[in-house]
């Protein structure tokens, strides 16, 4: 199985902020477009490291991860493909709640 790895803090931004691209350069929409969608297309499983940032807002998380469902990815596919690496279990449960 081919695993991809994305770290929000090192690959994207230490200060992810905002929902849409119009809100700033480290928005959830941009993260989804530039990292999550290509990662899902290239790999069978995508490991996302959520640690190391200066805090992640729910608006960012909802747009980045919840937005995938709005773009047509099925909830079961997302549940299967994503693996989260984090010290804070509430981040993972929040993200998965957007796919239910």
């Amino acid at each position, binding site marked *: 199985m081919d695993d991809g790895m994305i770290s929000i803090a090192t690959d994207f931004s230490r*200060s992810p902020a905002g929902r849409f691209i119009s809100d700033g350069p480290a928005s959830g929409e941009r993260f989804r477009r530039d990292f999550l969608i290509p990662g899902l297309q290239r790999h069978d499983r995508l490991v996302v490291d959520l640690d190391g940032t*200066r805090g992640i*807002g*729910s*608006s960012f998380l909802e747009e980045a991860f919840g937005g995938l469902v709005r773009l047509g990815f099925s909830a079961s596919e997302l549940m299967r493909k994503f693996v989260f690496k984090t010290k804070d279990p*509430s*981040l993972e*449960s929040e993200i998965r709640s957007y796919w239910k």
Partner: protein
Amino acid sequence: MEIAIPEADILLKFSFVVTAIVTIVGWFVVASMTDRREFRKEVREYVKDAKATCEAVQASAHDYWLICDKKSAGASAVVLKAEVGNLARHLQILATLGVATPSEMMADVRRAATGGEFEKKGRVRTPVDQDRMAELAGSIQDLISSIDMAFYQRFKPRTQRQWSRFIPIVGLLFISRDA
């Protein structure tokens, strides 16, 4: 009621052993009770800190959603995210100390504090922001209740765990039966 008294010479022969055993067992009991009491105090301090952080999250959210202007919104958002992160860390520490709360509760707090139009450029205040504050207050109350419940599950009140207080009664029953 008659109470059986063993013969005096047997008691005298082994009295030093009984005394030593009772003393050693007493040390262990006292040490373990002291450890438990100190550990309980430490955990209670963490619980207090977690509750104070809940209040800090509420205050920062109030500042971001209802008070700050466009110029200070960025700084206010950073403070709010830091406080939410701080609360999440407190809950992780409490979980390692045996006082675990469901992760969905922290997710609810984060969603209420930093969801919707959080960090939106040029955000304007709307009546929905008041509803968000009410939602956040409810989520925080649920979380605090859950922390308290977990704490008292971990450190049960005295009446629920002190089965040892029945030992003398059971001992008396055995002695009277033998007699």
